[in-house]
């Protein structure tokens, strides 16, 4: 039987990692850790370069739309690499029959978000395909940012040490739950909106003292669980997370209970984890909390030398278990 691509392979979990490793990375000669952006020498300086495609369904959701997301996603990949995002490209694949008014709304929010994040959209491409050949609109963005040399350690985590603290910038999973709720037409007692946001203002503030920041990564598909497991494998360290210190929005908890999801595996589009020197952790949380995007940030765990490559979760009831890489069918078309 011929092997076929399944949705699970695009979900950001273990199967997605396998797909990238077995089918892309080796053929493209990409070695080394899978970081959010490629770091490249350019003359005297360094640049960070990244790309991301957006196929989210629905196109418009509480807290944003595919256009805003396409800007935030690429800005965030650059920002958490320690770079200052500068220039973006934007490419559109549009289905015949798509409403121009919707296109205009999407593009307007891209422009607004780029403006707010201080980046310029400088080049692009448009393709229109026959009806049924794609679902309404898909967007790709690529981005370039300037990377100060003193930030080079951040995306690979080379300075991470035992005892470093793990910080989250806000409650995870709001984006996934907002999408899921609008797809399933679920309603909430209290409104829940996607966390979709550009993080470069936050990263800029905490990188004023770059030496204390040892690693950053935004939470996308696979959520906190995926990021922490990738990190533990990449650095070959152990991680301990205290479940009760991870902030979780009430509707996210409710929906997870009913669908049997773990909120720690759900996607965000405007949250990140930061690994920082222990003496700097409280100060970083203070800086984060002074910004609306980081109001609920918290120290959630630390780096250990035990159980290298694994993430141990201290459950809020005193029990202990592994927090594993999410696998299988997560939510398709979440970003």
């Amino acid at each position, binding site marked *: *039987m011929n092997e*076929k*691509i*399944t*949705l*699970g392979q695009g979900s950001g979990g*273990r*199967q997605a990692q*396998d797909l990238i490793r077995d089918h892309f990375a080796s053929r493209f000669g990409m070695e080394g850790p899978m970081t959010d952006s490629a770091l490249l020498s350019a003359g005297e300086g360094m640049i960070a370069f990244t790309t991301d495609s957006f196929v989210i369904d629905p196109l418009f959701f509480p807290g944003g739309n595919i256009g805003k997301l396409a800007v935030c996603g690429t800005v965030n990949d650059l920002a958490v690499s320690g770079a200052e995002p500068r220039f973006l490209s934007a490419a559109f694949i549009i289905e015949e029959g798509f409403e121009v008014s919707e296109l205009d709304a999407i593009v307007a929010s891209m422009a607004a978000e780029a403006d707010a994040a201080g980046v310029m959209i400088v080049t692009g491409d448009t393709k229109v395909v026959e009806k049924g050949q794609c679902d309404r609109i898909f967007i790709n963005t690529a981005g370039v940012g300037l990377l100060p040399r003193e930030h080079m350690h951040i995306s690979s985590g080379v300075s991470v040490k035992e005892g470093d603290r793990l910080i989250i910038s806000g409650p995870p999973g709001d984006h996934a739950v907002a999408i899921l709720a609008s797809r399933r037409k679920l309603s909430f007692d209290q409104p829940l909106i996607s966390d979709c946001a550009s993080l470069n203002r936050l990263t800029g503030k905490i990188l004023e003292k770059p030496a204390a920041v040892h690693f950053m990564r935004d939470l996308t598909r696979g959520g906190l669980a995926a990021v922490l497991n990738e990190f533990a494998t990449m650095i070959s360290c152990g991680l301990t997370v205290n479940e009760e210190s991870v902030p979780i929005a009430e509707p996210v908890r409710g929906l997870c*209970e009913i*669908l*049997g999801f*773990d909120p720690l595996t759900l996607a965000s589009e405007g949250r990140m984890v930061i690994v920082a020197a222990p003496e700097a952790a409280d100060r970083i949380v203070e800086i984060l909390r002074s910004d609306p995007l980081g109001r609920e940030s918290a120290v959630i765990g630390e780096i250990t030398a035990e159980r290298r490559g*694994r993430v141990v*979760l*201290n*459950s*809020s*009831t*005193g*029990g*202990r*278990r*592994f927090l*594993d890489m999410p*696998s*299988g*069918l997560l939510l398709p078309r979440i970003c």
Partner: protein
Amino acid sequence: MKFVDEFRQRSQTESLARLIAEAATRDYTFMEVCGGHTSAIHRFGIPSLLPDRVRLLSGPGCPVCVTSADYIDRLIALASLRDVTVALFGDLMRVPGTLLSPAAAVAEGADLRVVLSAHEALQMAQSDPQRKIVFSAVGFETTAPGTAVTVMQADSEGRDNFYVLSAHKLMPPAMEAILKDGTRIDGFICPGHVAVITGASAFDFIPERYGLACVVAGFEPADLLMSVLMLIRQVNSSSPSVETEYSRVVSSKGNQRAQAYLAEVFEPCDAQWRGLGHIALSGLRLRDRYRRFDAGTAFRVSLPESTRASACICGEILRGLRSPPECVLYASQCTPEHPEGACMVSEEGACNSWFKYRHDE
């Protein structure tokens, strides 16, 4: 009272852990037979709160895990018919059939869609009268009444494009089958949500005929630890009985309305369990009066020959004779991404829970 957080207090779990450690004067093995219990036990890290002398085993209570490959093949064959959509619970998507899982069949073009309830499947039938909707009815006594209510509703509407493929199963006959075939346990953590429907008295035969301890348990950390403590005390005092820890929703007689719906629509039949084989009168099929909703008789499909031999020891794991790491396939050929046996598929399966929460412990 929200009925959740009140039973998740660290002060409760810590006290209970100490009481269990004090009460445990010998080795104990208890089996939980509900998939919801298996996943709660691992998710809350309950084993790390128990002394080594107290061992928990996972029995056959995950409806996904015990669903036979033959049933999965039939779902896929139905979903491959031109005018048929199969509506199924999400957990079934990755259960291996003989050749394909439902998820792989979707990639091949079969029309399988995830629903959260039988009612949602009926709504699909209502909104698209041209399409035939087959609801994949899996689950135990907890889930089957919902299917029954939905079939009765379809009947009263005179709906002719809604069908059910029943793999509903009954828990007490499976527990009895395990006991007859021999297992080495001291008692059962009885399935709380099955007992909501059947009543705790459905398990009376276990202490009476087999002399084993039984506690009907809830699903929060304090419930689980409390139930373990109650089981240990029953064993210590050699007074096996059925006690109910989950009294906030379980009565002795159960939900008689739900039982009436079940009896109206379904009748017991013999059933095939993955890992346990054939168990007499352990399944539910539609009664004659509702037979026209039976997808098994309404559609003719051809199924692949099931010739797969495997080193999978799901059967022994479901009986509590061995634990997942004792299987040669575990974590090598059989992982949550590429499950060989059904216990690795579902979030509630014993192997999946071990892999996710305790792997290489």
